[in-house]
C-alpha cells in the first residue's frame, strides 16, 4: 500500500488527479477551489503531469472545454465552487445528456448573495437534477480515494456519465490531514485507460448533441434517467474493488451507532464527523441515537436508505441549504419523499445550519437533539424546518 503523509486536502486531490494521468484540466480560479488548480498547473509546469492545462476565461468555458476534450476521448477534469458552478450551470446539464465522463471536484461554497466564500451546500443543491453522478466526501482520505473512484465510474463503458465529488470548501479543501496515498500499481489496477464509447474522430464521424424534436425528446430523457439509475451497479462494484485494494469500503449510505437507535441524525459531507462526536456523547448519556450518512446523492440510494432507517422512529436531517419558500432543506425533502411509501415512516425533523461556514459544534447537534426530544414528548406538530442558530 502507499505511503501515509500529512498534506493539505486540495494538494492531495491534485496528486490523485495526477495519479489518474488526466489528459486535460480546464478551470477558472474561484475560492476555495484555487489550491487544487494552482497545484495542478504547477504539476504540469514541472512536467510531473503530462496534461493540457487550459486556463479558461470563465467557468462557462471551463465546462465547455471539458465537453470538447472529453468528446475527443481525453480524460478530463475540472474543479469549481459556488458562483463558478452557477455560471457553468447550462453546460453542466448538457455534459450529462451528452454522456461525457468528465470529473469535477466541487469545493462546496454558498451561493451569493450576500457574497460569501464560505462553506455550505447551496451550490450543489442548485444542480441537483443535472444528471451527474454526485457523491460527498467526509475527509481528505475520502477525497483522494474518490478522485480515482470518480474517473473509474465515469469512464466505465456501462456508465459513461460525468461525476461530481463534493468536498466542503475550506473545512476540507484547506485542511492538512494525514492520509494514505495509493501506489502506482494500485492505481493501474483500479483505473484502466479511458476507452470512450463515442469519440469525435475523423476516421469514424459521428454527430453529437443533435437537437430533439418532441417526438424523440422524452425517449432521450428516459434513456438518460435509466443510465443514471443503472450506474449504481457499477458504483457499488467500484467501491467494492476500491475496498479490496486499499481496505476502505465505501457505501451509498453509511451508518454509525445504529444498534437499537430510535433517533438518527442524517448528514452529508464533512459535518458527518462533527455529528459523530455528538452521537458518541449522547450515547454515553444513554440516548439511543445513531447516525446515517448519505455518501451517494445521485443516483439516490433509495433501498439502502430504507434499509438503514428500518425501525428508526425519528430522523434529524441536517441541511446545509435552503429551498426558499419551499418544504425546507433539499435533503430533508428528498428523505421525506424517499420514505413516504414506508409502512412505518419515521418522523422527520429538519434543521438547516452551517450556512456560509457558520460553525456548528457537537454541542449544537446535542441541542438539536434535545429540542427534537422535547417536541416528540410534547407531541407538538412541528415546523417543516428550523433554521438553527439564528441570532435574534
Amino acid at each position: 500500500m502507499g505511503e501515509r503523509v500529512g498534506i493539505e486536502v486540495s494538494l492531495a486531490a491534485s496528486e490523485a488527479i495526477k495519479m489518474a494521468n488526466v489528459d486535460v484540466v480546464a478551470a477558472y480560479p474561484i475560492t476555495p477551489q484555487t489550491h487544487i488548480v494552482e497545484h495542478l498547473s504547477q504539476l504540469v509546469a514541472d512536467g510531473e503531469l503530462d496534461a493540457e492545462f487550459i486556463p479558461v476565461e470563465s467557468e462557462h468555458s471551463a465546462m465547455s472545454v471539458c465537453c470538447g476534450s472529453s468528446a475527443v476521448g481525453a480524460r478530463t477534469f475540472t474543479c469549481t465552487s459556488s458562483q463558478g458552478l452557477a455560471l457553468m450551470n447550462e453546460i453542466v446539464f448538457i455534459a450529462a445528456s451528452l454522456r461525457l465522463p468528465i470529473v469535477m471536484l466541487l469545493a462546496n461554497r454558498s451561493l451569493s448573495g450576500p457574497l460569501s466564500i464560505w462553506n455550505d451546500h447551496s451550490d450543489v443543491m442548485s444542480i441537483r437534477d443535472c444528471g451527474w453522478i454526485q457523491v460527498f466526501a467526509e475527509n481528505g482520505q475520502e477525497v483522494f480515494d474518490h478522485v480515482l473512484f470518480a474517473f473509474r465510474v465515469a469512464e466505465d463503458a456501462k456508465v459513461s456519465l460525468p461525476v461530481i465529488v463534493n468536498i466542503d470548501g475550506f473545512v476540507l479543501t484547506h485542511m492538512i490531514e494525514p492520509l494514505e496515498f495509493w501506489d502506482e500499481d494500485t492505481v493501474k489496477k483500479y483505473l484502466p485507460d479511458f476507452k470512450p464509447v463515442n469519440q469525435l474522430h475523423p476516421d469514424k464521424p459521428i454527430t453529437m448533441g443533435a437537437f430533439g424534436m418532441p417526438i424523440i425528446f422524452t425517449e432521450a430523457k428516459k434513456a438518460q434517467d435509466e443510465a443514471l439509475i443503472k450506474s449504481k451497479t457499477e458504483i457499488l462494484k467500484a467501491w467494492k474493488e476500491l475496498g479490496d485494494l486499499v481496505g476502505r469500503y465505501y457505501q451509498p449510505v453509511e451508518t454509525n451507532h445504529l444498534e437499537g437507535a430510535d433517533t438518527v441524525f442524517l448528514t452529508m459531507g464533512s459535518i458527518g464527523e462533527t455529528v459523530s462526536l455528538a452521537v458518541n456523547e449522547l450515547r454515553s448519556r444513554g440516548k439511543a441515537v445513531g447516525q446515517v450518512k448519505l455518501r451517494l446523492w445521485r443516483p439516490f440510494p433509495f433501498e439502502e436508505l430504507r434499509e438503514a432507517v428500518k425501525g428508526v422512529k425519528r430522523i434529524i436531517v441536517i441541511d446545509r441549504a435552503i429551498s426558499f419558500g419551499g418544504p425546507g432543506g433539499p435533503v430533508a425533502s428528498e428523505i421525506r419523499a424517499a420514505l413516504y411509501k414506508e409502512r412505518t415512516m419515521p418522523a422527520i425533523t429538519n434543521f438547516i445550519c452551517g450556512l456560509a461556514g457558520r460553525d456548528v459544534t457537537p454541542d449544537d447537534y446535542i441541542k438539536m437533539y434535545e429540542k427534537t426530544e422535547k417536541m416528540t414528548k410534547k407531541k407538538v406538530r412541528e415546523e417543516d424546518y428550523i433554521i438553527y442558530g439564528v441570532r435574534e
Partner: protein
Amino acid sequence: MEPLNVYASRLITKKEYFTPGHRACQGCAEALAVRLVAKALGKNVVVASATGCMEIVSSPLPFTNWEVPWIHVAFENAAAVASGAEAGTKALIRKGKLTDKGTVFLGMGGDGATSDIGLQALSGAFERGHNFLYVCYDNEAYMNTGIQRSSATPFGAATTTSPAGKLTSGQITWKKNMPEIAVAHNIPYVATACSSYPFDLIKKVEKAARIQGPAYVHILSICPTGWRLPPDKAIWIGRLAVETGVFPLYEVEHGKYRLTLDVGELRPVKEYLKPQGRFRHLTDELVEDIQKRVREEYNKLKIKTTL
C-alpha cells in the same frame, strides 16, 4: 479569374461533407457557405457548432447532415468546445494514444453566437492560442429565433426587435466590426468572405486551416427570409454587398491587410439596400448617411492595406 469561370465546377470537390436534405430555407446562402467551408476542409476535421440555424437544420435527432465528426453543446461556447477538442487531441497525440493526422478543429456559429453571446468564449480561445479555426456565418440577425437584431445587424435594417416605427428607422446602431475584433487579438489569420465568391471563400478557409494558431473567417451569409429578399436573389445581393463596399473581401495575415478582391470604383450603396425589404423604410437622407459611412470605412480599410 477567367479560367476559373470555365472550369469552376471541376475545381471544387464533388464530395459533400455537409450533405443535401437539410432543412434550411430556400435560397439560404448560409447553408451554401457551410457547404463550401465543409468542402474546403475535407474529412479530416472536427466541427463544434453553436446553436443556431445551421445546427437546427442539420441535426434533428436521429438524422444528421454531417459526414464529419460534429458536436453541438450550446449557443455561446462553440469556440470553447472547439478549443477543448483541440487540446484533448493534442494531449492524446503527445501521450501516444492517438496518431497525429493534422486534424483541423473548426468552431462555427452565427453572428449572434459570435459577436454577442459567444464573444467572450471566442476571445478566450483566441488569446490562449489554440490551433483552431473559427468561422462566423453572419446573416446579420438572430434568424433562427425569428429575425431579432444582433450587434451585427447593420444600421437601418428592420428586424423584429429593431422595427421601423413612427419614431425609429430600424437598427439604430452601426454593425459591430467582428473581423477587426479578431485582428485585435493578434491572431495569425483573419479574413472576410461571402458565398457569392465561392473560390475566394474556399481559398481563405484552406489557408486558415493550414496556418498554425487561431484563425478567423467572417462570412457574410445572405438570409433571404430575414432580409426580405426573393430566394433567387441571394447570390446577387452578396455580390452587391461586396461591389458597393458594404462588405469588402480582405484578409489579414500576420497583421498584414490585403484586399482579396479590389472592386475598383464602388457602386452606390443604394443598389444594395433597395432590393431588400429590411431597408425599404429608409429615407434618402438615411441612405446617404449609410453611403457616407460605407465610404469612410472602406477608405480606412484601403489605407490599412497600404501599410
